[in-house]
């Protein structure tokens, strides 16, 4: 039988398959096709697969073989489509897997220790101003300190429109810092530099304000940062810890190929990074709508209560939900014992 005759017989089927691929397209339309069309698509796809095998084995012209490769490839990517987000699985991840992973994650522990040691040391050096004379000025710059003090001295709250605007700004700014810490940790050293710079700058700002060169600025500063501080600082540390885990997997492969270990760890880390992102968004809303109110409108005790509640929720999430279940089972015993 001539190849041209085979092409005559097959081309209507291939054209039909092409048309069905066009109808399914790149969107989720495939799911809404009539059952008969889906069944027909499956039949035509398998037929095209058989034609490809035949064409390769029987030395069809390369153009025909190339065409069939593309047709089968195109149909294959419509037949086996991308998986949607499985929300049911994700809720299990969010409330069971992620807190447990964070609680036991050495990378997160390292990031916490690194950040808080630098933060506290920087705050101490800026506050003391004796051990390292002019530390805060070296880190932040005199102009920035003056600007910060004058800004907080004159800070009398914001209008509701400005609060909305600033909430947007905080989401973008804090989210970018978190994302930057996360991706830079892939190379470990640049990630630690980024995290360290943030820790030292934030610590120095706290130290300067604790020093109390301007009592009014200091009071307004702590009135401002109390409510959102726990959420924001935890989010930064968490995103850096998630990134560091990927960076470490680059070096310590646990018997896997380097690239395979990297992929495996990246997949494990994404829920942690998303958790950090949620904390950034939450912190931005608290910073945008609760933190800026002056004492006269919202008392400091309310903001302190917000800080305590959010810290308590974080502790519950990371420690209670994250505590290894095997150890809990050891304490409380199992039903079958």
């Amino acid at each position, binding site marked *: 039988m001539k190849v041209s005759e085979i*092409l005559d017989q097959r081309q209507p089927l291939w054209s039909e398959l092409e048309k069905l691929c066009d109808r399914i397209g790149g969107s989720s339309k495939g799911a809404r096709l009539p059952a008969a069309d889906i069944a027909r698509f499956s039949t035509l796809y398998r037929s095209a697969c058989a034609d490809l095998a035949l064409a390769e084995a029987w030395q069809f012209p390369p153009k025909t073989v190339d065409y069939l490769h593309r047709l089968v490839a195109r149909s294959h990517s419509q037949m086996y489509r991308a998986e949607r987000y499985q929300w049911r699985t994700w809720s299990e991840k969010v409330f069971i897997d992620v807190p447990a992973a964070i609680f036991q994650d050495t990378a997160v522990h390292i990031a916490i220790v690194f950040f808080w040691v630098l933060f506290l040391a920087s705050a101490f050096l800026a506050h003391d101003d004796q051990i390292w004379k002019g530390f805060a000025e070296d880190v932040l710059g005199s102009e920035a300190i003056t600007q910060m003090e004058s800004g907080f001295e004159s800070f009398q709250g914001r209008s509701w429109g400005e609060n909305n605007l600033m909430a947007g700004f905080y989401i973008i700014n804090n989210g970018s810092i978190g994302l930057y810490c996360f991706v830079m940790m892939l190379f470990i050293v640049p990630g630690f530099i980024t995290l360290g710079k943030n820790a030292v700058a934030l610590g120095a700002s706290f130290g300067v304000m604790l020093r109390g060169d301007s009592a009014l600025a200091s009071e307004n500063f702590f009135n401002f940062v109390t409510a959102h501080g726990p959420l924001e600082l935890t989010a930064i540390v968490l995103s850096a810890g998630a990134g560091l885990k990927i960076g470490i997997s680059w070096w310590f492969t646990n018997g896997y190929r380097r690239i395979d270990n990297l992929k495996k760890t990246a997949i494990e880390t994404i829920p942690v990074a998303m958790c950090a992102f949620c904390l950034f968004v939450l912190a931005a809303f608290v910073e945008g709508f609760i933190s800026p109110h002056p004492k006269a409108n919202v008392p400091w005790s309310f903001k302190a209560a917000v800080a305590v509640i959010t810290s308590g929720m974080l502790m519950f999430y990371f420690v209670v939900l994250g505590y290894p279940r095997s150890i809990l089972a050891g304490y409380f015993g199992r039903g079958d014992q």
Partner: protein
Amino acid sequence: MSLPKRPISQFQQLDTAVRVETPERIAFQYQVVGPFRRLMAYGLDICIVAMAFVGCCVAVILMFFLIAYLVPQLTGDFFSELVTSSVGVIAIIAALAFWFYGAVCETLRNGQTLGKQIANIRVLSTDGSAIDGVQAMIRNLFRFLDIMPFMPSAIFFVFDYFEDAYRLPLFLAGLICMVLSNKFQRIGDLMAGTMVVLVERDWAPELVTFSDPRVAKLAEMIPNDFVVSRSMAKALAGFVEATPRLGPDHSSEIASKLATPLKQAFGFPHDIDGTLLLCSLYFKTFSRFQSDEDPLSVSTSATLAQPTNVPPETDLPLAENSPTLVVAVPVEDINELPSGDRE
């Protein structure tokens, strides 16, 4: 009867095809896409997001006019606050679009953003299967690393005004990674185990036909037991399809590489034109595709030649017919056949 084979494995690195095996036990190829087509798709995506952003802004402005029209007693201060709020909301939408547009689109649209759909490319796992939501998220988050480094704003005085807010990404990290990777993977792709492939429609396959009657006559003289290997079939088809674009001298020169040993193998005179011989072999191989054990179970009265790699019998439906697409390639420039060989 066949010619000695030459190894072609040394050339395989030059190909951009990735072979994938399906659950149906069929292996097919995807063409991976290089950086320039992908950059075009990314540019299109940025344009689409920017247009959506502008549309958002216009919608908000129209909403203000509508509010002012419907509630005329509202004060200027209220509007001022509303405008300020809207800037914040629009900024959040822009940031979310920048961070999550790619991940959400690729998950919901089967590996394609709108830009990728226009550019006919798709993201797949490196094993050929479709990507999932986590892979889409990883490859898009790590784009932040791929677009680095940023061009220092001081280079362009126009950007000095904005200081560091509008630095230009150079995409060098992603580009270098793609050049070093055999599947053109950027850092995000390596992390997520994904690749970007071409999903373009190909043209309908066509066979070359010959108007010169000498082609068919010479094809009959080629021994029936001569087996054309796959690589030779590929070379033959490539040559015959390119012949109309080649000059006669150039064509003969290229043909001689294969035609000379073929003439010796077939016992043909040396003065037969190489191009004519290869066209005849093409004609015999593809246009008189025959077998003693026809795999398609269709009867034919032609003389049959058994290929080496006969597949098992298939039960494909063969009832339907349609007009044949053929390309006629005139072979007028070739020399006359030697008189002794002509009937």
